[in-house]
């Protein structure tokens, strides 16, 4: 019940944000430029597809009192469990169905008999959850600290810089692994760990941009009018930061998804029962050594991961080019 509510709230918030963005000339212009390129449209379609899958997997309800809750995705795609491996397009061993496509495991089954296609789709929500929750928590913190450091300068700036230099000096992977070992596996823990290691980059960016904007004439004008710092920051500087922040968040999202895969592979990511592509790859690793080779598990998970990351990268780059072609930086 709560899950459904949260999902709805998030969707509504996203809808509002996008609608407001399209009203501003900067974003409208950017989208216009992006619409022209077929590659970007393709990437956008893929993203929309993934988002739909994630949404379908977020709404769940139970059929009866003691029944397990099933999501929309479950109801459409869940296949009965087999006993062990079966190759792609293998027939269900349980009751046959009149519709041919529904009667097969499209991508085969894994070691314990789970339908691979179904498990891959379940991984979408996990990826979005990790990327989305982490970004949502990192964004306000990085924005706040970055703006404060850039605008107020001196003592505040020194303190914030000290904090993130200390944090930044610890190599990311090491810190992630250490945190996950201490906090334990789980989605919230992973989000916290990823958040702690990724806010510094965005904060630096925000601080740099705020420094640049602070000396611009419109800020001087606002100060001459007697506006206080909070108002200047929120109403004037923040909107000018948003393009860079959005682009950074989009590209960061893909990095987060990739990080989850690696951490889950190492065993310090998402727990086994929560479907994730990292877990699938970890399980699939040993399968390649079998005779005959079992490849569909690995290929399915890596392809899904690849498509999501690729689409995010393409859209992120296109946003950057759309906002300002001169902003190109790796």
């Amino acid at each position, binding site marked *: 019940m709560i899950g459904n509510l949260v999902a709805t709230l998030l969707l509504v918030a996203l809808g509002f944000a996008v609608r407001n963005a399209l009203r501003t000339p900067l974003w409208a212009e950017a989208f216009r430029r992006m619409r022209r390129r077929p*590659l970007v449209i393709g990437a956008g379609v893929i993203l929309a597809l993934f988002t739909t899958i994630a949404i379908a997997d977020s709404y769940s309800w139970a059929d009866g009192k003691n029944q397990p809750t099933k999501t929309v995705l479950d109801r459409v795609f869940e296949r009965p469990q087999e006993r062990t491996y079966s190759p792609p397009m293998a027939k269900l061993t349980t009751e046959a169905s009149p519709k041919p496509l529904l009667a097969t495991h499209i991508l085969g089954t894994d070691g314990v008999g789970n339908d691979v296609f179904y498990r891959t789709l379940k991984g979408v929500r996990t990826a979005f959850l990790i990327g989305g929750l982490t970004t949502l928590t990192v964004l306000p913190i990085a924005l706040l600290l970055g703006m404060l450091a850039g605008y107020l300068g001196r003592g505040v700036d020194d303190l914030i810089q*000290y*904090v993130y*230099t*200390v*944090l930044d*000096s*610890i*190599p990311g*992977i*090491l*810190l992630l*692994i*250490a*945190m996950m*070992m*201490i*906090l*334990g596996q789980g989605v919230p823990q992973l989000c916290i760990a990823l958040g702690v290691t990724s806010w510094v980059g965005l904060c630096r960016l925000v601080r740099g941009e705020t420094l640049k904007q602070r000396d611009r004439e419109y800020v001087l004008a606002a100060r001459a009018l007697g506006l206080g710092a909070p108002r200047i920051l929120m109403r004037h500087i923040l909107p000018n930061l948003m393009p860079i922040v959005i682009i950074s968040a989009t590209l960061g999202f*893909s990095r987060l998804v*990739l990080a989850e*895969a*690696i951490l889950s*592979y*190492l*065993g*310090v990511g998402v727990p086994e029962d929560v479907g994730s592509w990292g877990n699938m*790859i970890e399980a*699939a*690793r040993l399968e*390649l*050594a079998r005779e005959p080779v079992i490849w569909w598990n*690995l290929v399915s998970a*890596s392809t899904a*991961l*690849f498509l999501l*990351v*690729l689409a995010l*990268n*393409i859209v992120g*780059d296109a946003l950057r080019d759309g906002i300002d072609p001169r902003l*190109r*930086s*790796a």
Partner: protein
Amino acid sequence: MLRYLVRRLIYAIPILLGVSIATFALFYLTVPPEQMARQNISAKNPTPQQIQDWLVARGYDKPMPEQFSKHMRGMFLFDFGKSDSTSEPIVDRLRSGVGPSMVVGSMVLLGSVAVSVVVALVVAAFRGTYLDHWVTFLCVLLMSVTFLVYIIGGQFLFAKLLRWFPLAGYQEGASGLRFVLLPAIIGIAASLGANVRFYRTVMLDEMNRDYVRTALAKGVSSSRVLFVHVLKNAAIPILTSFVLSLPFVVTGSLLLESFFGIPGIGTYMVDAINGQDFSVIRALVFLGTILYIVGAILTDLSYALVDPRVRLE
């Protein structure tokens, strides 16, 4: 230069202090030791005795100030102590692991920089053409594939299927070359996408600058402009990113080493994860931090050496 170096080293001390305190907070304060024990003991419902044993073995039962002083002493004296799982001194394993890690790591770093610079130069020389667009797109594709797939796929294809390289293993000396070639090639291939894109951007930025126009107006050939003028300026950010990556050559790649059985520091890390070996993790975190700070100082120094505009204050 020496004064700058000394000053940077002095500035590093509060950072190291901060890192030590942060790691102490992380390892000893964030989660109650009992909970950590419960998580990491393999049994389903550990008995109080099992929990106690786990805590004592790792020193979590001592009073907090004693833990703190032991932690700080260990950090600053490089006394990493013993491994939780194997009880061997950590430094021994570190010493033996540095060699293999550096062999593979340096091959990957040098190889990938060399290949990426060449590709980026070619692409920059042909900017705007179909070659440029396709290579750039290819880079985005390559960047979107997770490192895991490069390793698993590469190992499967070249070692298992084609049998061009051994599957895993390591050997000292020149005869061991065949063991490190495949991991090195895979490491280079995986970083190619991001590097070429970065270097290309740097070079294109330089090619758009005014001094290029002046050089052309003098009558300098466009190839000389690219290979002498642009390259010299582009080398600055390229070199600094190279120097910044040096410390990580020592720590080694966790994934490469564990997949290919290279007995380096990366494998040590993976073993520590599997063995719930917190003291090793602590030691490696500290080691990694020191190396990173060294890398940052080296980067600033190299900047000053290559860019005549930079004067070390």
